[in-house]
């Protein structure tokens, strides 16, 4: 047949041949809007085009971009910071504090993809005020929103119906005496206000989309996102190029699994001497509960049900003390789980039905929802954090203390150490540098001498200790024996299990999990939850969940793992839907729902999904999460 001579290498099913013939007879202007591409590696099915982002489909050869002005406006600063979270803001504040003390001029610019500082911040959270005390000894007078000192600390091992209390001995890492329950989004907003007062230029609503390099390979700065590109990748009338911000040093504080950091790891080979990072996904809700059940300052953690002993995870429930009877609660699942049928969102929803949790939530109202990935690797997974022209701060390299379930204090301290290392170099009269972008290896030295390093070293073996036959129980025993007694002084360092994305077992080897239907009072469905996150993106833009190869989801993820992205995405971005033109499925990406948690980039077994930043100010609209 004619088709076999034109495309001899492929084997087409009868349906596909009919489809191809039908397309050939359709006139160009009546053709269906989707572009169909044929992949040689792929099967007999036709794959509709999904990805149109310029990072996958370059614009220099694209005829639609001919003659479009691509010149960018550039500006110079002394230091540019990517990310307005605790690390980025602490670094900015520290730089300006030093500049004001020593009466030096320093231009510090901070770009943040959220529409306002704090809108993409999500955490438990129990804040250890150590770093804050160092940054602002007068934080109370300045009105920092640390309103809820921890008054009781409860740890439970849950079974399906019962609860086994675990004593919170002083000295255990998750003991919270002296800490504060905070709404981290509000704390970050306050940090933003302090930074602006000190003279930091903060630009929310502008995402850093590209790293810029000098000719010698050092980092020159960043470029913000282009705007006005249509969903199919073509320029709209309102197209405008992003702006370039050049700096002597660029700090990358994108939080857990940043997309620019991913690029920098490859560019500068920063991960050659450490283990691959391992992650967890944290889902969180805020509830307004019945006043009679409200116990401000109470911290509850649990492990066990509904997860089995070999799936790392647990829950938190914190009673806030800010006027209204609010509780912040959530569930964390380690992303090294093996069963592709597991849905972290649905585990979270069914956990709320446990009698010990349900009794607090009954009669209450859910008012917020969100999710974010977090680091679990600790000491073994710390990469090299400095490179010519820049450095990594905060959860991006990953300083979270996993058993303590806290990473904010270490993130802030890393930002402050970065600032202290950069300041003398950036304000030096004679800047003698080998590279055009400043290299500041003193930052890494300072980190190693600081309490961050000591802390992470002492807890380094707790998380990996879960990788044994007894799973959770083995881990708890290890923590009790080696941490509580020896404080991490044991001479060995355990290893993690490897890349999270490689841990999934094929679907046929696993059993599907029967999740209960949401009851609308304690547990809820995914879409109503996503609506509560306030997330939204400009609809007419290329999906920012880009696929390196559009055919891989159906060929690999669906075929072997039954499409785990439908289950691990906490926002319902990924759906496998039947093809309009006959048999087979296709992946539908609902990019507008994305809450920027980064779980898909981490857990995709094919590592085919590459999360890139969408147009600035898109994403969730968290308020005090």
């Amino acid at each position, binding site marked *: 047949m004619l088709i076999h001579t034109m495309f001899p290498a492929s084997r087409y099913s009868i349906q596909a041949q009919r489809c191809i013939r039908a397309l050939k007879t359709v006139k160009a202007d009546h053709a269906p809007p989707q572009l169909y591409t044929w992949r040689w590696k792929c099967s007999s099915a036709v794959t509709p085009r999904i990805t149109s982002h310029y990072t996958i489909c370059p614009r220099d050869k694209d005829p639609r971009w001919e003659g479009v002005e691509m010149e960018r406006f550039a500006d110079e600063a002394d230091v540019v910071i990517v990310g307005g979270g605790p690390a980025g803001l602490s670094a900015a504040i520290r730089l300006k504090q030093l500049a004001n003390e020593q009466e030096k001029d320093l231009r510090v610019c901070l770009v943040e993809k959220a529409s306002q500082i704090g809108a993409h911040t999500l955490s438990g959270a129990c804040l250890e005020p150590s770093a804050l005390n160092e940054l602002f000894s007068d934080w109370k007078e300045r009105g920092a929103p640390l309103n809820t000192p921890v008054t009781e600390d409860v740890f439970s091992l849950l079974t399906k119906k019962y609860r086994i209390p675990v004593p919170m001995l002083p000295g255990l890492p998750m003991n919270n005496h002296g800490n504060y329950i905070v709404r981290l989004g509000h704390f970050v907003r306050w940090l933003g206000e302090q930074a602006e007062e000190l003279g930091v230029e903060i*630009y929310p609503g502008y995402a850093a989309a590209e790293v810029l390099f000098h000719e010698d390979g050092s980092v020159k700065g960043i470029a913000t996102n282009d705007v006005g590109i249509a969903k199919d990748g073509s320029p709209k009338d309102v197209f*405008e190029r992003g*702006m370039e911000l050049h700096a002597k040093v660029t700090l990358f504080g994108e939080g857990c699994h940043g997309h620019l950091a991913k690029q920098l790891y490859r560019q500068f080979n920063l991960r050659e001497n450490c283990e691959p990072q391992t992650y967890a996904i944290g889902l969180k809700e805020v509830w307004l509960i019945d006043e009679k059940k409200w116990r401000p300052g109470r911290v509850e953690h649990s492990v066990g049900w509904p997860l089995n002993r070999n799936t790392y995870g647990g829950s938190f429930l914190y009673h806030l003390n800010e006027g209204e009877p609010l509780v912040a609660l959530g569930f964390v699942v380690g992303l090294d789980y093996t069963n592709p049928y597991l849905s972290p969102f649905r585990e979270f929803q069914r956990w709320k039905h446990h009698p010990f949790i349900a009794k607090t939530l009954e009669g209450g109202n859910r*008012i917020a929802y969100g999710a974010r990935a977090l680091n679990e690797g600790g000491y073994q997974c710390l990469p090299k954090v400095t490179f010519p022209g820049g450095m990594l701060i905060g959860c991006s390299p990953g300083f979270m203390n996993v058993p303590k379930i806290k990473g904010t204090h270490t993130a802030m301290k890393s930002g402050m150490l970065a600032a202290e290392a950069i300041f003398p170099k950036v304000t030096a009269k004679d800047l003698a540098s080998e590279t055009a972008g400043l290299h500041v290896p003193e930052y890494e030295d300072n980190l190693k001498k600081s309490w961050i390093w000591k802390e992470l070293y002492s807890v380094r073996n707790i998380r990996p200790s879960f990788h044994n036959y007894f799973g959770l129980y083995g881990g708890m025993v290890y923590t009790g024996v080696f941490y509580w007694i020896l404080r991490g002084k044991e001479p060995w360092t355990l290893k993690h299990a490897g890349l999270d994305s490689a841990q999934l077992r094929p679907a046929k080897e696993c059993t599907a999990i029967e999740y209960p239907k949401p009851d609308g009072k304690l547990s809820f469905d995914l879409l109503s939850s996503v609506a509560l996150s*306030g997330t939204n993106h400009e609809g007419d833009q290329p999906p920012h969940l880009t696929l390196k190869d559009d055919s891989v989801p159906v060929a690999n993820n669906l075929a072997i793992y039954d499409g785990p992205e439908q289950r691990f995405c906490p926002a319902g971005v990924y759906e496998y839907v039947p093809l309009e033109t006959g048999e087979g499925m296709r992946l539908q990406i609902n990019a507008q729902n994305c809450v920027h948690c980064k779980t898909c980039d981490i857990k995709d077994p094919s590592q085919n999904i590459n999360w890139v930043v969408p147009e600035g100010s898109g994403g969730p609209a968290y308020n005090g999460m």
Partner: protein
Amino acid sequence: MSRVLVGVKRVIDYAVKIRVKPDHSGVVTDGVKHSMNPFCEIAVEEAVKLKEKKFIKEVVAVSCGPTQVTETIRTALAMGCDRGIHVEVSGKDYEAMGPLQIAKIFAALAKKEEASLVILGKQAIDDDCNQTGQMTAALLDWPQGTFASEVTIDGEKVKVVREIDGGLETIKISMPAVLTADLRLNTPRYATLPNIMKAKKKKIANMKPADLGVDMVSRVEVLRVDEPPTRLAGVKVETVDDLVAKLKANGTI
């Protein structure tokens, strides 16, 4: 024709889920994501387009409210307005502020600034009043071109194509006039970062309603705010008789 006044309102972002305050006095606004009213963005875009076509010399962005509205004025400046006016209203006055008070402020400013056109969004997405433009025109005794989907300046007159229930109506009004922008008037441009940086250098004048001789007293009192009732599931019936029986049973007929 020299000057255009554009009104911009800071409202809760359209994608955010609204929550009623526990005391039912209003909705929660603290910390909630706000942005410029979409119809105000269209109004700003139209004014900037008129300036680019050289029909007018200066675009002044005006907003009324507490300090946070200066962010909204900055966005308007970044889109191309020349200067801003922040009319400070806060506390109880801000909560009670409605179309009539705004209209009085705009009328006073239009006279003070000798504006040839006042361009507003047709309505705000938080109160959906659709009154401010019309009231402003009445107070000034100026012609009004509301629900504009096309605006053309023709000498001393303005041709406005209006979107009305029956279709499109074209009117010609003389300047000075008040226009309100409807959805299809234009596609607003993005406020890019270089323009935001430049906008920091543009002036925003500060004033109070009293400076304009406007009394902010509201004759409207909000008694209570409630969530809309949860939508009940529909009921399917098999025959027309069933339908009639059900309607009779719940007292509708």
